């Protein structure tokens, strides 16, 4: 260290090197983003951060994708990230004067977000949330689409843990009666939540542990141990359908909004 500092005829000092290569500002930026988002594994986050700014430029969709996944959607910082990602997606490189998120880019992002969901389900979700390729996607449509993807991922995780509860023998098969009862109950409570705010509370009561327990014990005793079973895939599909029922279709809501692209032209 001392030897290095002593050497005066070096072309540039360490400090100069760090200034020239922007390392200081990069690290400052990485740290402030990290503190805002508090990733679970900071080292992995740093690795990804520097990958993002090193020479092999990722596409803007990848950038937006990484930005969105920085923090969980329940955190306040998520909204900031979503806006930043939207801005990234909006910058159009080739066409001049035309700014905005096109449907094709938006679909690409959704596809990336729903990568680890089973393809059957993600296709159904995409059908509901995607826009036509030439459409310009307004922020709220984009936001609800992204959120639906993220919530669905967590929802499937929850469904998996519910299924594991039912799968007593850990053989990958659970009692069909039990699962049907639980899924029906879920379906009922979800469809109940309409415009009336009280219905959400009612749904909560309906799904409370004691009610669920009573229903499950009933279904087991009435049907006298039916041997029919259900696999995780089936269970996942049914529960995902319940979820997807509640996802508003973008094609419908876009009909009310005048096409932004036509505005610009």
């Amino acid at each position: 260290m001392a030897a290095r500092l002593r050497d005066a005829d070096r072309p540039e000092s360490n400090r100069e090197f760090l200034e020239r290569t922007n390392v200081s500002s990069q690290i400052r930026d990485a740290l402030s983003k990290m503190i805002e988002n508090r990733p679970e594994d900071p080292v992995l986050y740093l690795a990804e951060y520097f990958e993002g700014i090193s020479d092999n430029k990722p596409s803007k969709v990848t950038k937006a994708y990484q930005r969105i996944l920085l923090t969980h959607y329940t955190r306040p910082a998520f909204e900031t990230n979503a806006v930043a990602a939207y801005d990234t997606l909006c910058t159009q490189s080739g066409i001049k004067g035309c700014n905005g998120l096109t449907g094709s880019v938006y679909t690409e992002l959704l596809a990336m977000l729903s990568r680890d969901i089973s393809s059957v389900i993600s296709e159904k979700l995409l059908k509901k949330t995607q826009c036509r390729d030439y459409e310009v996607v307004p922020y709220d449509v984009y936001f609800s689409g992204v959120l639906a993807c993220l919530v669905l991922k967590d929802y499937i995780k929850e469904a998996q843990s519910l299924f594991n509860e039912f799968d007593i023998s850990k053989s990958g098969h659970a009692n069909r009666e039990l699962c049907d009862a639980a899924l029906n109950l879920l379906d009922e409570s979800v469809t109940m939540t309409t415009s009336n705010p009280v219905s959400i509370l009612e749904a909560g009561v309906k799904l409370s542990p004691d009610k669920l327990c009573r229903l499950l014990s009933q279904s087991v005793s009435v049907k006298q141990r039916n041997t029919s079973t259900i696999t995780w895939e089936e269970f996942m599909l049914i529960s995902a359908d319940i979820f997807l029922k509640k996802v508003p279709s973008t094609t419908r809501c876009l009909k009310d909004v005048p096409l932004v692209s036509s505005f610009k032209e």
Partner: protein
Amino acid sequence: MSSERFSVSAEGYLAKHQVLVYLEDAISQLLDHKEDNPKVNPAKFFHDYFTSIHQGNHTLFREYSFIRSTAHNRSSFTRTFWKCYKHIGKNGDLLNVKEYHSLLCLLCPDFPFDLVQKTARIILMDDAMDCLMSFSDFLYAFQLQFYYEEFLQDCYKIYEKLMQATRSPRETVVVPSSSSSPRQKKQQTPLPPPEQSPEGVDCLQFYESLLQLCSVTDCSHPKTNSLKDILHNSNRVSFYGFLMALAKNESVNACIGVLPTKAAIMDDTDPEHIVPIVTPRSKSAKPVLGGRTPRHIKH
């Protein structure tokens, strides 16, 4: 657990994950690297640096002060040690302290002998320095000693204090009437000389002091459940007996999370197996007849 990181201060969060240690090291590594490669791309360099930290293969050939600076570095180094030398375990060779030390020095040039000696003490339970140890014994004892170094030191202090209490004549007079009542062991002499005093300390007492230590210390320590499992099995425990039990405990090992279970340690299925480094010892090799045989004989 997952939301805990949002409730601490920014400094607390950075300190918990030792982000600043790594950032500082990353910069100094970059500056070192720049000396030879002036055209280095810092972002790319940092990406490689943090990726290798994430994968845990960043400790090879680094200086000792860096290797021991974080818990992650320590566990990574232990893993590297295992990966580089597991063929020794497979051959069933037994080595002595000095040989293990030179193996470690190949991975980390300034690795202190002192730590290897401490590890040997766990296995041999005395100062017999020329005794041979099997690789798996050494590996797990080394992991314990290296990963929990500060914790073990504190344990030793507690142990000594308890020992002194049992040894001191005043205490021994009191002992038979009160604290030794649950013990079935009969007291041979009312005043045993210090050298022949009952082996070790009372487990329950030791456990309670350790619990207290775990609740106040900031250094990493094994789960209290594992300590409980170990110390509730017997009445008295000696210090090195306790350490040996810790080293052999599977749940302690799983908690550190870098080494496989003892049964799987010789498995050669690891895809990222590092090419074995030639060991410096060849003359002193003493193949032991009737020793352990390799688990897998490949045809």
